[in-house]
């Protein structure tokens, strides 16, 4: 398969690649992959792709002359109707085929996201369990989210959206986790750095992140990974990949025997906590880790500095 400036494979050497080109999340994942952390296989649709798309669609070029509000609405409308075109679609679908999975997770990777504030995350589009048929559409949905009102509102805090198109999209094999959640390498509220704080829900971690579901909470002592605190939570519904051929996610009932069951075994907990402890040491800052466990594996989905 020929090299394309639009596709970067996770696991490839970073060499001249920059966070601007891969996005904060994408660059971080590429880095984690090189460090042999267990991340789902996948590739990044680089920022060059969006720039190329922009350059080849003259109707988009004049958008920045508008007022910010009008500009974003214009951009969204224009993106909505444009087809991404074979120059982008061919390498995209080629990479998808090479991944050889039924569905993927499609996540926006802005150069400003992560690295800074977590509340910024989630401002951009994430599409889970996307089939090949809907991949191009999902990619465009991520791009469109760069121009959403909420991003604009958020940016009033610092600078305007501007004409910054450093925006990549990470595409990874879709994991079907038994349990997932977040781990902080210091206590989120009292900031005790001697503790690791882990929250776990059944199914996809998005249920934990959104706060739709109250997670099991584990607090472990960092030095020996002894469990200091365990707060169980009853969970009756979980988010999971939809079983329909169309992809997407759906809320499903938790199997009755799992509703009140502990979501992580001591062994899995130890593995997860030691991985996070290790991540913190390697990264050199307290980490906010998104993770998932399948029947037999632990995956690190994202790792970013704790911002608060």
């Amino acid at each position, binding site marked *: 398969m020929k090299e394309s400036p639009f596709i970067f494979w996770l696991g490839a050497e970073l060499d001249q690649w920059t966070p601007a080109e891969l996005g904060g999340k994408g660059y971080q994942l590429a880095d984690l992959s090189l460090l042999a952390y267990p991340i789902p296989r996948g590739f990044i649709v680089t920022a060059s792709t969006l720039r190329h798309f922009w350059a080849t669609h003259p109707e988009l070029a004049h958008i920045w002359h508008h007022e910010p509000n009008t500009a974003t609405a214009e951009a969204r409308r224009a993106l909505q109707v444009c087809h991404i075109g074979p120059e982008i679609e061919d390498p995209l679908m080629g990479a998808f085929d090479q991944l050889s999975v039924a569905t993927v997770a499609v996540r926006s990777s802005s150069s400003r996201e992560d690295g800074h*504030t977590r509340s910024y995350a989630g401002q951009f589009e994430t599409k889970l369990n996307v089939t090949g048929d809907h991949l191009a559409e999902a990619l465009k949905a991520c791009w469109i989210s760069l121009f959403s009102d909420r991003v604009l509102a958020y940016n009033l805090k610092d600078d305007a959206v501007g004409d910054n198109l450093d925006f990549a999209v990470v595409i990874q094999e879709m994991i079907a986790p038994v349990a997932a959640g977040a781990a902080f390498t210091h206590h989120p*509220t009292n900031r005790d750095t001697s503790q690791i704080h882990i*929250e776990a829900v059944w199914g996809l971690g998005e249920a934990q*992140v959104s706060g739709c579901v109250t997670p099991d909470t584990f607090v472990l002592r960092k030095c020996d990974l002894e469990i200091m605190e365990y707060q169980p939570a009853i969970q009756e519904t979980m988010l999971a990949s939809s079983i329909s051929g169309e992809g997407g996610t759906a809320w499903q009932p938790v199997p009755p025997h799992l509703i*009140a069951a502990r979501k992580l075994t001591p*062994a899995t907990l130890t593995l997860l906590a030691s991985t996070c402890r290790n991540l913190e040491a390697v990264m050199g800052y307290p980490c906010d880790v998104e993770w998932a466990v399948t029947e*037999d594996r632990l995956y690190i989905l994202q790792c970013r500095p704790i*911002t*608060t």
Partner: protein
Amino acid sequence: MWAGYTESKCRPFGIRTLCTTSEQTKSLGVDYKGFTFGPRHALPMYMNQLFTDQWHYHGKWDGMSLGDSQIWLGPEAVDAFHEVFGFWKGNANVFVGAGTQTACHSYSRCAVFEEIELFVEAWIARDAMSLLNVLEGYRRQADEYQAGCREWLSSAPSSMSNSELAALFRRIRRLQFSISRYDQFGIFTEDFFERRVGQILLPHIADEMEYQQTIDALILPHELPTMRLEEKALLESLLALVDSDKLPPGAPPRQVRLALVRHARNTSQKLSEQYGWQRVFLRNIGHTADHYLSELTDLATGHEDLREHLLTRLRYLEQLPFQRRSDSRSIVERLGLNKEEQTVIAIYRALTEARNEASTQVGLGSLIVNPIVTEGCKRLGIDENIFHLLCVEEFAELLDGSRQIAQLDIDGRSRICGFWFQNERTFHLMRDDEAQRFLESQQDAHRATEAPILSQPHKGTCAAAGLAEGIACIVSDVDDLNKFKEGMILVAENTTVDYVPVLRKSAGIITEHGGRTCHAAVVAREFGVPAIVNYPQATHIFRDGQTLRFDTAEGGIVHIISRLDTGQQK
């Protein structure tokens, strides 16, 4: 047997009382470090699933009691027991649910779990050869065991010397230990697959009886026809018992014993037909009369019209074909099962067969061991009940004279009727009087955990520190955000990115769900807004217009300082 048979296949799995506190969870966890599951600390996720399934399947553990060596466990388990209790014992049983007789074994040899792990791994990898290899390993041991049994069945304990008797006893027990591994293996793996078979079949079949028949047709082990005959004989005896109006409580009725004699006869007949073994008649194969009696009592309390229930079951049994059916193909076609579903059923079938054979063979050990025990006890001048308080080595040593009965604290042992976990490693031994109190306290705890969630004290989890005071704004969906004014306290089920502009302007945040790292919590910390998450029913407890105050230093408590409801005053 029969009560357990119907119950265990149809019992709903949802038991919510388990693992409700961290202490309980600790004691039920996978690794009892060196005890329950041996010195294995790194069981992968699916193994845990398997075990939690088990515990859930069997329900809440209400108490534990020393069992009576019906099932023999391996040397490691015996060692572990000795380490904890300071004396030797063959096994321990866990009794679940007050007054029920469902028991699962509280520990097994490590090898069992290694094998299960291999098996499940192979299953996940869809590696049919490895699955067969695991079963093949069992087959070899079964052959060795069977050959041994043939030889020993012809031996005559009464004509042996004490040391010969001791040696034979040791040898049989050693083989029983190894064969019982597969019984244990079968119990776990069979359950594992039984769940999956249930998941496959339940969407197609709503009727309990039809479900049972389908299972029987799909998975009919060799033993089933005989089991049916035994069950039928037992049911008939029980019906006679019910009709004679002499139902318990009371001493074990003679009719039940009669059933057991028939039960034993059928077993030996089956063995002679299937394995060409010599026919023997013996009492108490597998279960004791007390066991059946308690099952009967259980059943009588569960079914107001016991007679009708017995008759229904009997009629059901009578209409079953008493030979192996081969119409599984047509069921598979009728239900339209796919390849993978068929594989699950095929494996389940292989497992039930293997396990039934293993338990038959363990039970068969009694045929040989019981005469040895009877003879040995006679020679030692001890009651046969005392045998159940001895470990294998002790009994053998008493026989060959290297140990005296006076050296053992038999009286103390006989009064111990249970134990509980104090923490992951230590146990508390219970004497009979204490056990009663323990069970009562457990029942109280059980009732407490059954109480509805609403009765929990209202409080949440602190997600962002600080003191907040403001007018409550209940936000049920994004449209409600319009009524939010700066300085209000936002009360919502959870938050999304759409809430961010409002979160920034709020005096405080209260959410019904979520943990300390959910969206609402992280954003609140970022904006420096005090927040409480996981406050059950918050959007129903608080109302628009109320003035709320909370200080995260107090824990997750929220005060309503003014109940002013402007809406009603107008």
